[in-house]
């Protein structure tokens, strides 16, 4: 019938079709062919009462297709009772490499990684919850991250499977602890863009931590975008969210320590795109800044690079770098080495770290030379002296000192200052003119935003709260340089949260987390005396090196940390390095303690309180090498710190927290700090105290004292480090400064800043007398190489195509990619070196501490740099690009000038416009000069130029000077 003529044509598509005339070619025939009404008839939907009841069929007999697929083994067994099949014989797909089991009864490979295969099952021994490994998302020195299916919840999670080594386990428990605190205490509703931790347990002797499963990280996102920047609307969206997270961290007094695009992940299928901050494996509480070698290089803050004490402000630096990178598609400071990094910062930002930082930082001599008379500073004449006494080393000088050439990375931007880089970044193609104008405005806002973040002076760097009010984030029109509000104490929030820590509530940590670890070396909780009189020598000092040694004697005493202290805990830190050093801090209510078990008391954290089962065996601890604790804790100077109990941070009635620092050495020490708890004080407080209720006594003494203070950072409450700057700044001032009435007095040798409860005490500190410092702003002749009017779109920037500006698209577009890997691996590396080898009390096994110490180096293993370089693939260590040194004396000389800006003013800026003036009016925001983008909004910078007169008089009116911002209160 019909034309069913079989044929021999081999080509399936060139077939003799039923309706040949209808189908000249398959594609065109597609729409035209219709099944004819032969055997088939037109479809008509039928009532559901068909002859076949599906359920009936299921009961009677499964479809053959099922019986020969899903149930084929059963079917075969029916056919042949001798048939047997064992899944065990299936070839295993190994997810872990190497996959040869040599440790832990064959479960672990030579790297102590658990050997994972597809469908490997991890079980929480307590809850019996099963995690079925489906894939490995990433690997690092800490272990692996696996994507797991949880049958119980029908969901996927990311499980970090830590190496079977005590050092890693303990390190990971820090992350567990910090993240649990953040999740449960500070962000119970999951609104702050911090990754959620779901569970943790030990399986096959590996600590496993379960996190929510997220999506692509921002580095991958940029990569997918071919290293072209993301649209400003997305940059803004992400910035806002990251700031949410950072604000929370600041409230909690936690420093992430490794913020970078790789550690910010898109959430799965969220519209619009939502991101979360991950990897708290390097995080610490602000009071326990144990490690000096932290942060991935590109995102490393100047203070960390220089070996200066650090605070949550270092995350803000990293954040600034990230924002810039999101916009540019390339890292802002792709330093191939620390030297290169610093050079880039100095060049791009114009300026250098403030003298007070350089004076204290332990690595200063590696990068700077002293060209001034230190004595001048000591005599508080720095403010009169207009130039910094430090000058950055040139490449040659560096090489001479270090006996090796510094690695210098490739230049990605032809412009070498921030304003020009952002302003001249190619616009997306085919952007209508009005849109270009609009975007140019937003770019100005972005520049202003970045300036507040990548600010050399940690004290002036904006806090998350301040940054989140910036027009770039809020989307408000940017009309004038942003003047951040005074840091809000966030009293209410903070208090509520902190109240939770009240001892009455018990140890959250112990209560909430420890059950899972039951049975492993568990140590009875030390519901330790609130007030433990701990002999200094025995003090359980977590941060300082010395403490380790001393711990031997007083292991039991360590428990003081564990207790949440109902009222005051008395801590003594002892540093053997500086024999006379002691540090006593008493904290009211131990609020700190509540969240701090996590922190960086790597060595004992688990032995106390937490109930994690870390038994502080003195013996183990004893062997802690000095190397494990960062060098910043081994300064020659000793100090004492004494904080006076202030229930304050927990309740309104306890207004303050006091800390006292004294140098037992008898040197005059700028010691006491009376400070509010974290989050209540703006970090910028270092500059001026003006709030009525806050009082600062600042006493300044000579170096010895100062250095002692630097060391103390770990014990200081959050803001304390930030006081240091002020102390130094104050050099030019009177020895003591009293603002506001002080209720508690300390010896004059001390510096007591008491801040009191309610918002009264966000001090918008300004350096006094700073005005004097302004000089020589124009004396620096920028190197011509700095400014290149011919921007060339080389490298990856050549084409700026349309990227998806649709936020919602982002999430889906990159939907399936999971990238925990790169981020994690980086972390891992660092961790391996930093982990103080908790070895002390091993979590799972009691390894000899010595063993784990072996890989802990006090210094920085060279591998770090290499590693980071490789990871990003953007740094070419081998690429040697000679860079003229721009660290001219005169530029340094401007340094002091920055002091006179109020909080957010940056020396960098000051230099910048100065710079611009000299070179390129086009890239400056001056009102008089030609403005490339016609943003008139800057023109009359009326409101901001309140003190246009003084120090900047040397600057021609055409340049947008710092003066515009320079409001003096």
């Amino acid at each position, binding site marked *: 019938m019909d034309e069913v003529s*079989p044929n021999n044509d081999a080509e399936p598509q060139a077939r003799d079709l039923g309706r040949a005339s209808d189908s000249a070619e398959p594609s065109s025939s*597609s729409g035209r062919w*219709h099944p004819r009404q032969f055997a088939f008839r037109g479809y008509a939907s039928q009532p559901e009462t068909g002859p*076949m009841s599906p359920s009936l069929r299921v009961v009677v007999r499964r479809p*053959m297709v099922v019986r020969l697929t899903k149930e084929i083994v059963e079917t075969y067994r029916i056919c042949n009772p001798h048939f047997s099949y064992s899944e065990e014989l299936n070839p295993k797909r190994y997810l872990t490499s190497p996959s040869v089991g040599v440790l832990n009864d064959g479960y672990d490979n030579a790297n102590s990684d658990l050997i994972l295969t597809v*469908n490997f099952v991890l079980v929480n021994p307590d809850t019996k919850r099963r995690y079925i490994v489906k894939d490995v998302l990433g690997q690092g020195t800490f272990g692996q991250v696996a994507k797991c299916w949880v049958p119980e919840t029908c969901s996927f999670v990311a499980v970090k499977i830590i190496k079977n080594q005590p050092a890693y386990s303990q390190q990971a428990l820090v992350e567990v602890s910090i993240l649990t605190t953040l999740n449960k205490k500070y962000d119970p509703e999951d609104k702050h863009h911090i990754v959620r931790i779901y569970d943790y347990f030990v399986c096959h002797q590996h600590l496993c931590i379960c996190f929510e499963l997220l999506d692509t990280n921002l580095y991958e996102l940029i990569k997918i975008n071919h290293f072209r920047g993301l649209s400003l609307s997305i940059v803004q969206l992400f910035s806002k969210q990251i700031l949410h997270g950072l604000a929370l961290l600041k409230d909690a007094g936690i420093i992430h320590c490794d913020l970078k695009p790789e550690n910010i992940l898109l959430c799965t299928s969220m519209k619009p795109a939502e991101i979360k901050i991950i990897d708290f494996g390097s995080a610490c509480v602000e009071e326990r800044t144990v490690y000096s070698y932290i942060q991935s290089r590109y995102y490393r803050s100047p203070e960390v690079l220089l070996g200066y004490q650090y605070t949550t402000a270092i995350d803000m630096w990293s954040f600034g770098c990230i924002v810039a990178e999101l916009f540019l598609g390339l890292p802002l400071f792709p330093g191939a080495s620390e030297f290169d990094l610093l050079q880039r910062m100095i060049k791009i930002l114009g300026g250098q770290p403030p003298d007070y930082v350089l004076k204290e930082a332990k690595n200063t001599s590696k990068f700077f030379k002293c060209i001034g008379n230190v004595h001048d500073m000591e005599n508080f004449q720095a403010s009169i002296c207009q130039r910094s006494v430090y000058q950055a080393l040139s490449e040659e000088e560096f090489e001479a000192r270090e006996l090796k050439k510094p690695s210098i990375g490739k230049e990605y931007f032809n412009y070498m200052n921030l304003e020009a880089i952002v302003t001249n970044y190619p616009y997306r193609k085919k952007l209508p003119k009005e849109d270009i104008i609009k975007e140019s405005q937003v770019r100005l806002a972005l520049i202003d935003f970045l300036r507040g973040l990548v600010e050399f002076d940690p004290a002036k760097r904006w806090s998350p709260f301040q940054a989140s009010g910036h027009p770039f984030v809020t989307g408000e029109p940017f009309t004038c340089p942003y003047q951040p509000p005074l840091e809000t104490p966030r009293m209410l929030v903070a208090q509520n949260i902190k109240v939770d820590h009240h001892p009455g509530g018990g140890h959250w940590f112990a209560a909430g987390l420890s059950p899972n670890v039951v049975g492993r070396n568990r140590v009875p909780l030390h519901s330790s005396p609130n007030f433990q009189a701990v002999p200094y020598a025995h003090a359980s000092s977590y941060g300082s090196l010395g403490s380790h040694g001393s711990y031997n004697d007083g292991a039991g005493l360590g428990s003081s940390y564990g207790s949440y202290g109902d009222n005051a805990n008395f801590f003594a830190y002892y540093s053997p390095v500086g024999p006379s050093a002691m540090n006593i801090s008493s904290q009211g209510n131990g609020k700190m303690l509540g969240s701090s078990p996590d922190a960086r008391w790597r060595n004992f954290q688990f032995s106390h309180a937490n109930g994690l089962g870390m038994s502080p065996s003195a013996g183990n601890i004893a062997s802690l090498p000095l190397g494990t604790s960062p060098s910043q804790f081994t300064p020659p100077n000793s100090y004492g710190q004494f904080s006076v109990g202030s229930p304050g941070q927990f309740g309104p009635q306890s207004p303050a927290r006091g800390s006292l620092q004294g140098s037992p050495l008898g040197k005059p020490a700028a010691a006491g700090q009376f400070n509010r708890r974290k989050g209540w004080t703006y970090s910028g407080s270092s500059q001026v105290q003006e709030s009525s209720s806050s009082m600062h006594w600042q006493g300044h003494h000579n170096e010895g004292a100062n250095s002692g203070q630097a060391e103390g950072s770990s014990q200081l409450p959050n803001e304390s480090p930030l006081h240091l700057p002020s102390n130094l700044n104050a050099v030019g001032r009177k020895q003591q400064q009293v603002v506001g009435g002080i209720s508690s007095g300390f010896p004059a040798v001390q510096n007591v800043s008491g801040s009191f409860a309610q918002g009264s005490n966000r001090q918008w500190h300004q350096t006094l007398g700073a005005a004097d410092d302004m000089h020589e702003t124009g004396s620096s002749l920028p190197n011509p190489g700095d400014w290149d009017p011919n921007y060339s779109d080389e490298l990856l920037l050549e084409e700026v195509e349309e990227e998806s500006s649709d936020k919602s698209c982002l999430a889906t577009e990159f939907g*399936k990619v999971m990238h925990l890997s790169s981020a994690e691996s980086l972390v891992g590396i660092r961790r391996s070196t930093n982990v103080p080898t908790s070895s002390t009390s091993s979590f799972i096994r009691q390894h000899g501490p010595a063993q784990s110490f072996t890989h802990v180096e006090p210094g920085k293993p060279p591998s770090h740099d290499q590693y980071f370089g490789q990871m990003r693939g953007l740094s070419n260590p081998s690429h040697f690009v000679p860079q003229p040194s721009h660290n001219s004396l005169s530029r340094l000389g401007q340094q002091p000038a920055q002091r006179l800006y109020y909080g957010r003013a940056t020396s960098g800026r000051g230099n910048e416009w100065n710079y611009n003036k000299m070179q390129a009016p086009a890239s400056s925001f001056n009102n008089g000069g030609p403005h490339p983008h016609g943003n008139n909004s800057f023109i009359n910078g009326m409101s901001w130029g309140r003190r246009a007169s003084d120090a900047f008089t040397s600057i021609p009116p055409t340049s947008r000077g710092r003066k515009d911002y320079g409001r003096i209160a």
Partner: protein
Amino acid sequence: MENSTQESHHLRSENSVTHESPYPLYAMAVSSSPSRHHNHRIALGSFLEEYTNRVDVVSFDPDSLSIKTHPGLSFDHPYPPTKLMFHPPSSNPSKSDLLASSGDYLRLWEVRENSIESVAVLNNSKTSEFCAPLTSFDWNEIEPKRIGTCSIDTTCTIWDIEKNAVETQLIAHDKEVYDIAWGEARVFASVSADGSVRIFDLRDKEHSTIIYESPQPDTPLLRLAWNKQDLRYMATILMDSNKVVILDIRSPALPVAELERHRASVNAIAWAPHTCRHICSAGDDSQALIWELPTVAGPNGIDPMSMYSAGSEINQLQWCAAQPDWIAISFSNKMQLLKV
């Protein structure tokens, strides 16, 4: 069986031909090229719950609408064959048809005029003790020396049947692999109990592309059909589901269409061999439905264009390029050819 070629057990009408087999049928294959007598061979595999199963090769004469059996064209098969397939059409048709079957192993048979000879048993098992049953296979049309098999041991094996050797074996999935389909000479896709559809390229064996995952992970995908007329499209079916999922490999993850008019689970799917937009599905509701892919799905889903109701649950469906006007289905012990 009788001794001579005969017309047997079939009911005839203008638009359909029915062949009745002595045993329940599952596997079915239509030869790509007509035999000497211009008849099309159809291989039928039994589904018996015993070790010895049976494969019969019958011939269909579209002119007379008759189906003939031949006593010589039949052989025993260990276990029910999970799939049967004739050699793809070739420019140089050999004298005899080559037939492949899958079950405990991949087997090749030469279908001669009056007899069938076993040509090869392709066994990739490392141990003699166990064998991992093959759930399906596909013969590469462009490179007919290549057959890809899939197994419950999570692997796919690519055979070079000229050399009777394994070309490669890949751990394709995290669970049992249930079906495999070639797209190009070196590109194939597979479905699995792990609920995913993955595409493999033999030139890069380290990677596969997951283009679909069943909404509930680990819901097995049982069958896969790659649209030979438009390789962008594939269709798959889920276990115990009345849905046919149409995928566009250019937009992974999200199906382009879900056809949901069956009233019981779908058992088989086949793309039209001559148009790029039509697909036929058959299921436990004893219906065979022909669908045209719409450009846009209506609010109430997609209705099929036409339907056929068989006597009972339809287990198999073939829509062969050699006979695009005929759709072959099997249900219980019957094979039916339906004219479209």
